[in-house]
C-alpha cells in the first residue's frame, strides 16, 4: 500500500464554489433557496398589489410582527434537527409570558427578574418534555401534543380565566416598540459587517497558511459586500422618518428586536457550527445509533434540544408580551406554533432530522411575516390567512420530502 497523498483540495475559486452550489441544489440540497425565492416573489406581488407594503413604516412592522415567531422557530430548529417535534412551543411561550406579566404587574418585580423567571420556566418545561421523550421513549409528537393542551389550560389558570394582564414595564415594552437611534443603527451595522468580514478573512488566512482549502478572497468579498449592501439598505430605510406626525413624535431607527434576533442568531449558529455540542446534535439527528457508538449521550442531547427549544419559546413569549403590551389566554396560541414550525421548515430545516440551521428560522420567519402582513394589507381576514399559511407549510414540507427523495436518488444524503 503506497502512501501517496491524493488529497487535492480543489483549487478554490468563485466558479468552483458556484458550481458546487449548483450541484448541491440539483442533488436536492436546496438550503435557503426556496425561502429566498419565496421572499422575492411575495414581496414583488404584494408591492404591486398594495403600494403601502413598500413603505418604511410597513418594513419596520414586518420585524416586530415576525420577531416572536422567528425566535420560537429558532428554538424549534434544535428539536427538528433531532427528527423530533415540539407542538407545545407556542403555548409554552404563552405560559412563560404569563409568568412574566404576573411577576411584573402583580408582584412588582423588576423586569430582569421577571424575564429571567420566564426563561427559567421555559427551561424547566424543556427538561420535563425532553426527559419524557428521551428517558421514557414516548414519541415527541404525543408528549408535546399533550403539553400543548396542558399549557393552553395553564395559561387560562395563570391569567385567571380570560382576563388579560397588561404589561407596563418600560424595558419590556421597549423590546417590540422602541427603535435604536439612527446613529446607533449605523454603528451596529458597521460592527456586524466588520465582524463578519474579519472572521471570514482570519479563517481563510489561517487555513491557507496550513495548506488547507480555503474560501477565495473574491468570494469573501462578494459575501461581505452583499451583507453590507442589504444591511445598509435596510438600515437606511429603517432610519427614514416613519411617523405621520414627526413634530409630535419621531419614529425612526432599527427596531430593538432586530439586534436581539441577530445576537440570538449569531450565538446559536456558533453553538451549532463551532462547538462539539452542535456537532453531536447533527450526529444524533443523522444517525442516533452511530452517535451512541461514538460515545455521545443521546438522551442528554435530546433533553438539551428540548431545553433550548422551550427556553427560546420563553424569549418569544417575552417579545410577544412586549408587542401586545399584555398577556391574554391567546398569547402563544392560535397560529403561533404553526407559523413557527412553518418558518423553520420553509427556511430549509428538515422535518426528518439531521439538517437545518438557525438562519433557516430567520429566513422562514421573514416569509411568514411577509405573508401575514401582506395579506392583512390586502384586507383578507383570518380565514384566508390560515388557509394560505397552511398551504405554504404543506408546500415547504413537500419541498423538504421531495428534496430528500431526490438526494437519496443522487446519493447525496
Amino acid at each position: 500500500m503506497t502512501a501517496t497523498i491524493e488529497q487535492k483540495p480543489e483549487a478554490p475559486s468563485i466558479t468552483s464554489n458556484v458550481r458546487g452550489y449548483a450541484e448541491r441544489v440539483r442533488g436536492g440540497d436546496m438550503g435557503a433557496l426556496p425561502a429566498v425565492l419565496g421572499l422575492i416573489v411575495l414581496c414583488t406581488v404584494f408591492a404591486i398589489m398594495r403600494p403601502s407594503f413598500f413603505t418604511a413604516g410597513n418594513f419596520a412592522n414586518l420585524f416586530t410582527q415576525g420577531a416572536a415567531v422567528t425566535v420560537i422557530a429558532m428554538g424549534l430548529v434544535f428539536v427538528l434537527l433531532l427528527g423530533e417535534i415540539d407542538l407545545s412551543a407556542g403555548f409554552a411561550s404563552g405560559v412563560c409570558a404569563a409568568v412574566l406579566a404576573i411577576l411584573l404587574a402583580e408582584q412588582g418585580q423588576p423586569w430582569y427578574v421577571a424575564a429571567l423567571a420566564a426563561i427559567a420556566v421555559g427551561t424547566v418545561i424543556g427538561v420535563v418534555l425532553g426527559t419524557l421523550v428521551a428517558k421514557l421513549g414516548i414519541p415527541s409528537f404525543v408528549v408535546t401534543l399533550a403539553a400543548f393542551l396542558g399549557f393552553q389550560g395553564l395559561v387560562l389558570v395563570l391569567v385567571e380565566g380570560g382576563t388579560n394582564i397588561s404589561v407596563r414595564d418600560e424595558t419590556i415594552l421597549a423590546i417590540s416598540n422602541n427603535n435604536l437611534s439612527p446613529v446607533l443603527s449605523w454603528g451596529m451595522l458597521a460592527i456586524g459587517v466588520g465582524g463578519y468580514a474579519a472572521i471570514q478573512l482570519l479563517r481563510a488566512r489561517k487555513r491557507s497558511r496550513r495548506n488547507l482549502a480555503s474560501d477565495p478572497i473574491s468570494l469573501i468579498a462578494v459575501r461581505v459586500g452583499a451583507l453590507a449592501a442589504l444591511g445598509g439598505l435596510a438600515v437606511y430605510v429603517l432610519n427614514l422618518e416613519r411617523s405621520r406626525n414627526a413634530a409630535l413624535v419621531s419614529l425612526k431607527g432599527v427596531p430593538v428586536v432586530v439586534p436581539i434576533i441577530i445576537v440570538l442568531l449569531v450565538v446559536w449558529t456558533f453553538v451549532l457550527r463551532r462547538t462539539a455540542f452542535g456537532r453531536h446534535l447533527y450526529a444524533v439527528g443523522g444517525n442516533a445509533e452511530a452517535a451512541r457508538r461514538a460515545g455521545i449521550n443521546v438522551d442528554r442531547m435530546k433533553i438539551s434540544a428540548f431545553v433550548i427549544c422551550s427556553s427560546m419559546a420563553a424569549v418569544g413569549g417575552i417579545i410577544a408580551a412586549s408587542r401586545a403590551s399584555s398577556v391574554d389566554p391567546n398569547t402563544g396560541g392560535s397560529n403561533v406554533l404553526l407559523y413557527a414550525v412553518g418558518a423553520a421548515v420553509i427556511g430549509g430545516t428538515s422535518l426528518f432530522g439531521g439538517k437545518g440551521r438557525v438562519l433557516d428560522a430567520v429566513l422562514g420567519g421573514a416569509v411568514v411575516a411577509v405573508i401575514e402582513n401582506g395579506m392583512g394589507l390586502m384586507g383578507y381576514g383570518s380565514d384566508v390567512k390560515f388557509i394560505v399559511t397552511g398551504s405554504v407549510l404543506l408546500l415547504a414540507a413537500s419541498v423538504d420530502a421531495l428534496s430528500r427523495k431526490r438526494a437519496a436518488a443522487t446519493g447525496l444524503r
Partner: protein
Amino acid sequence: MTPVLELRGIDKSFGPVQVLHDVALTVRAGEVTALVGDNGAGKSTLVKCVGGIHPIDSGEYLFEGKPVHVHSPREAAALGIEIVYQDLALCDNLDIVQNMFLGRENKRGLVLDEDTMEEMAARTLASLSVKTVKSIRQHVSSLSGGQRQTVAIAKAVLWNSKVVILDEPTAALGVAQTAQVLELVRRLADQGLAVVLISHNMNDVFAVSDRIAALYLGRMAAQVKTSDVTHSQVVELITSGRSGDLGLTNGVPA
C-alpha cells in the same frame, strides 16, 4: 506474553433468546485473529459486547490481563479498542472529517479545532492510500460503499488504538480495495496492534490471519493457529461445529 484481550465464559441473551453461550476468545498483540462462523452465529453480537454496545450477561472480560467492565462505547475506546461495525456507524449528514472525529473532537477551549482535525484526517486517509475521495469535506452520504468502509476503518486507525476489530470489512468491496484492506489489516498487526477480522471469505482469512476462532451457534467451536488447519477443516468447524478432534462434542467444547 499476556493477551491484550481475553474473554472467558461470555453469555449473552436478547430476552429469551440466548445468542452467546460460554464463549472464550483470546486476542494477542501483533496478530490477526480471524473470527469466523455462519450467518447468525453471534460474531457481531460478540463484537458489540466487546465494544460496550451490548452489556454481557456473565463472563470475564480481561484487558491486558486485568479484569475490566466495559459499559459504554466510550469506555471501550478509552481502553484502546476500536471497532468497525458491520452496519457502519457513520452519520450520513456529516462529512468525512466530522465522522472520523465524532465524539472525540479536537477542541481549543469551547471551539472545535477544525483545521487540526482536517489535517489529521487527511494524513490518516493518505496513509490508507484513499484515492477516490474528492474532498474530505464531502458528506459521507455521497460516498460509495467501499469509500464508506475506508472512512470507517480510517476512523478506527486514527486513534493509536491497541485492538482494532473489523466486522466484515471487505464484504462490500471490489477486488482491489479488498486487497488494500487486507494489506492494511496485516500491516496494523505487524505494527504491534491486535487485530480481529471477521470474514466469511476463507481465502482472506488464510491470507492474513495468525489464528482462527470459529463460532458455531453461539458457542466457540475452536480457536486454532491458522498454520495448523486446512480450509476444509475450518469450513467444517463453521458448518457443523466440529472437525476431527477439533470443535464441540455434543455442543460442549472438546
